[in-house]
């Protein structure tokens, strides 16, 4: 693959990140509409649905609430969760 191809791929990635970053500044309004969409499901349901896709989920009392913050962030990326799903699941796991 020649240099210009790499450059164009890198540029494309940078552009995509910038675009997404910019839209993140309008986050509050966007997240409101998200909440409506995700509100069909509670954190408990999202917990079983998403975690069990790959492994047996751990019980909410397996970790402290602080630890769940970290674990949810880690697993959000590995398990392809949306930000909204991460927040709902973390809230459920922490409110034991």
């Amino acid at each position, binding site marked *: 693959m020649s240099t210009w191809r790499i450059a164009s791929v890198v540029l494309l*990635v940078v552009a995509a*990140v910038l675009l997404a970053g910019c839209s993140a500044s309008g*986050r509050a309004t966007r997240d409101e509409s998200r909440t409506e*969409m*995700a509100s069909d499901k509670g954190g408990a349901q999202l917990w079983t649905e998403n975690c069990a896709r790959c492994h047996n*989920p751990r019980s909410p009392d397996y970790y402290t609430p*602080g630890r769940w913050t*970290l674990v949810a962030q880690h697993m959000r990326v590995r398990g392809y969760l949306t930000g909204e799903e991460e927040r709902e699941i973390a809230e459920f796991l922490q*409110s034991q």
Partner: protein
Amino acid sequence: MGSLHPRRWRGRRRYLLLAASFVVLAGAVQARAAEPERQNPGPRDEASIRAGRAVYIKECQSCHGRRGRGDGPGARHLNVAVPDLTSADVRSETDGKWFDSITKGSKPMPAYRRRLSERQRWDVVNYLRSDIAPSATPSEPGGPPPAAGAMTQPTTGAVTREEYDRLRSELEDVKQRVDERRGGGSIFDDDRFLVTGYASAGYINRRSVSTFTAGINPIFVFRINDRIFVESEVGLELATEDGVSSTETNLEYADINFIVNDDMTVTAGKFLTPFGQFPERLHPAWINKLSDFPLPYNEETGLVPFSSLGVQVRGAVPVGRLGPWSDGKVVYAAYVANGPSLIEDSADEAGNLNFENFTDNNDSKAVGGRLGFLPVPELEIGGSIQWGKVSGDADALRLGVDAAYQKEIQPISGTIEARVEWIWSSVDTVTFDETGAAGFGPLRYKNDRNGGYAQLAYRPTLCDNRLLRNLEFVTRYDTIHVPAAAPGAATDTHVTFGVDYWLAPNVVLKAAYQVDSPEHGPHDNGLMLQAAVGF
């Protein structure tokens, strides 16, 4: 907590703790003063029952089950049995007691004081009373008199001096502990650092080898703030090659993650390759239901690099309701990485790909990615690609498809999980050792390979017997097709039958028998035993 900076958050945490202490104190005083049990404000009408049902489905059903029997899909992941709401004991409790249970929770059930409004909590009580667990009739012999328990509590409304002093001293103690921690946040705080990972110990008895095995893979996660975290896995394994034993230490992955927004994360470093589902998500010993890897994902002779060194963009986008489907989600990953290199000068391996390409062998990079679609939460289908130059004059293209489906099915009293993944690899034709100087050439063959696996697992999750419930039956067919002229790799097929016993959600004992059917050579059938722990 939104976007609070950790330091500010710790500062605020102090005040939150203080405020919480006052709330506890006030609550304790109030609890003494107020009537201990609430009366249902009613009315238990159609609207309230309907609203309660909606809340129940969303917040309660996944553990308590559709009919309140404590058999929802989440129940089996808890350390305690979920009570049967239809039991006589629970039915004989008052509305006020139920309201109280929902409000306060009971580990591991969350407290719903803040998650649900008071009205919603009463709606749930009304729904339960009307559809799930009707009252035991007051005239029923042995049933408790309605709300009698509530009246036997002391209702003096006064807090004694003794109680006040005790609460006061407890509050002072909490304040002191908070002060001690002020500004003293450490990297070892619960929300900043975690060592997790997995370990395995096994025994293999094949025709070709009979040995014990062991390995441990600690994973370190550092959470810097709401947007950034670092993760790394170290694989420590015992290996024997050509009769020489050694301990292998591998940096399986080490990457920095930046969460751009709800739908996107940028990852840089050495990351698990988002190709199919197995390398990224299913390979840890406590997740993989069999103790070996499917042939096309074998780390030495497989078709795809388990990890890649580069930059990746990934995320998930909810797509809402699409036609007959609900709550669809699209997941994606795209990356630029060093990519593999073609092995050209080895008589034993010419034509294989070297995935451990830590210093790129050429100026070109590999690009790749995966696009997945989840029309419903139970089903995920995906397609993967990786393309790049692997030597001076050869490109390599890998394509993959994957699908996974899980479902708890009442008539078979259990959960099935079906997985299929297939990979096609194509490397441009190259003449190896053209002059014959290396002693094995010239060697030239069409370097197309493919392989895949199909796996079906069944666990009787709805069975009443605990021993049976912890069993899981697994069968897998996996195969890899390699050109006959390719050295160092061979067409092979495995069929494996396994039984797993789950001692805990993250502890499993596996036993499996594998039937090996290579294109050439002896069948290397064998028994595989393994204990695996996720920690």
